[in-house]
């Protein structure tokens, strides 16, 4: 009993770190472009599929870690230019446009990849004893990679020119444009970065979940929950909320079935929305 609790809690924690990556992408797009991105779960799904394709093309799993975010970035930038820019940040229209995008991405994957879900064998096999349970090495590795990617993203946001531009445009678009920041280009790159984060999460998660053209449908509500509970625009909050939620769901799953776990996190989210709409961590962030 103690073992299952521990195992599920660990699984939840690691899944939360991966979700944090994806939700961060959603949060960046949401915060900067004011786009409610219904297709974000599919960005993740595209990542898992890219990992599968690069594995079957080259026989090397690790190439997917580079290919997935790279292609994701390019597709994201193209999407922003072709689809998102013409609707001028009207949130209602963005829902329709990204709904259409979601259908197109899912259907394209169904045509090219097929409708049957597949599994990717973990590139690192074996288990290690951890707190008395045998734990899969790849999951630990995935957690480490996600943590590193999260850290890299925050460093990117704080210390690179593009990162500073992104924060500046978000903070005050008018002033940023007046200071000579090419806001239009920042939007394109931001959407690319958002897609890349989700696709990278997909590549990392591919050996843990299944590769399926409908794989994003379940991930999307979870990411929105993380973004809302963490507080709109509060990026560290998003990460914390993702980890907290997945951990809680893992814990509840050890005593009840996954649906009950999902329902309880949804109830938690309603409470947060109604009582603390600025997010659970408002005031804790600087």
């Amino acid at each position: 009993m103690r073992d299952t609790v521990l195992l599920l809690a660990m699984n939840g924690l690691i899944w939360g770190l991966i979700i944090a990556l994806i939700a961060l992408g959603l949060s960046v797009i949401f915060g900067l472009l004011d786009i409610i991105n219904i297709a974000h779960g599919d960005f993740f799904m595209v990542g898992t599929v890219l990992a599968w394709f690069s594995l079957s093309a080259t026989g090397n799993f690790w190439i997917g870690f580079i290919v997935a975010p790279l292609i994701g970035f390019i597709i994201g930038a193209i999407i922003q230019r072709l689809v998102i820019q013409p609707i001028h940040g009207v949130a209602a229209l963005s829902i329709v446009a990204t709904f259409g995008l979601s259908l197109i991405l899912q259907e394209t994957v169904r045509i090219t990849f097929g409708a049957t879900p597949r599994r990717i064998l973990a590139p690192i096999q074996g288990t290690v004893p951890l707190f008395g349970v045998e734990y899969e090495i790849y999951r630990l590795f995935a957690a480490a990679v996600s943590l590193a990617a999260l850290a890299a993203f925050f460093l990117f946001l704080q210390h690179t020119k593009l990162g500073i531009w992104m924060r500046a445009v978000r903070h005050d678009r008018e002033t940023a444009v007046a200071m000579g920041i090419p806001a239009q280009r920042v939007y394109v790159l931001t959407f690319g970065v958002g897609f890349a984060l989700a696709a990278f999460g997909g590549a990392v998660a591919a050996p843990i979940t299944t590769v399926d053209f409908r794989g994003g449908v379940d991930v999307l509500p979870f990411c929105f929950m993380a973004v809302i509970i963490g507080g709109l625009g509060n990026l560290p909050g998003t990460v914390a909320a993702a980890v907290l939620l997945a951990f809680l769901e893992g814990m509840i799953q050890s005593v009840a079935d996954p649906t009950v776990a999902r329902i309880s996190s949804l109830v938690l989210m309603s409470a947060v929305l109604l009582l603390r709409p600025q997010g659970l961590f408002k005031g804790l962030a600087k």
Partner: protein
Amino acid sequence: MTRRSLEIGMAAGAAAFLIAVPWLIPALTDHFWVSVITEILIWSLFAASANLLFGYVGLLSFGQALYFGFGMYGVALGIDHFGLSFWPAFGLGITSAMAMALVSGVFAVRLSWHYFAIITVVFSLIFYFLAVSMKPLTGGDDGINFSLPPVFRMGRTVFSLTDPTFQYFFVLVVVSLCFFLMYRLINSPLGKGFLAIRDNDLRASLIGLNVYVLRLIAFVMAGFLAGVSGALFAFFGRYASASYMFYQVSGEAVVWTIVGGAGTMFGPLVGTTLFIVIREIVSSHWEHHSLIVGLLAILAVIFAPKGIVGLWNGWMIRLDERDAATSAPPRLTLQAKP
């Protein structure tokens, strides 16, 4: 031709077509299309419920499938579980949808914009997962089937929805009645209050409108429309399933509304018709019809951000202006003087 006579002509043509459908369609093509048109009518009512909230009150609900599902399960459980006859089951479906809308609306309408969209989808997800997990009662994703009770008897003749023509007219009458009610509502003082809130909720509250109560009323009324459409769909398919409560179903209503034209009476009908007709035509030839649906949704928001009906209204206004310019030049010169 003036705008008004053109529009009256089109409305009359559409009404004549809808009445003639059970005879016209089998003569022209296949009987199958009668049931497609029945389905379009039902779903356009569902889209109208999203439109009432978004187009007239400015609240973007992403959870209308919840009330659709309650209407559906009210009917299915009423017949299958409690052994109700047709009308009580219909009533149960509608009232349970409205009750659910009231309960969730009390919380949801306190929020606005993004937060409102998200809390409505959260509520609908909670009940979707509940419905999936309560499999003995709801049948989960597989759903529950039931057999139709007769609608009413007249002497020895029994009217039942198993007759496709009667079913079509039943749906047509109910849907038209709901659209008429919505039309009356929008043009009532209450409806003007809705529009005031949509345009500026702060100003609306400053002129003495109770924004919270008005939003709640609109939310329950939208729940009513969604509940009626769900109940009709349960009768139409003779089953209810949790899969119709998923957020993607709510999303479709929003997409149909916005593509058709939010804030217009017939926008949802136009959008729903467009998407379902394309689905039916393309899906029989090509498996991947959602590719076209997705592309269409994107093209629609880029080239017709006010929807198809909005595009049409724009043309009509330009037509009016041209008429005014050609028929009444003296008035224009008069106005030009200070």
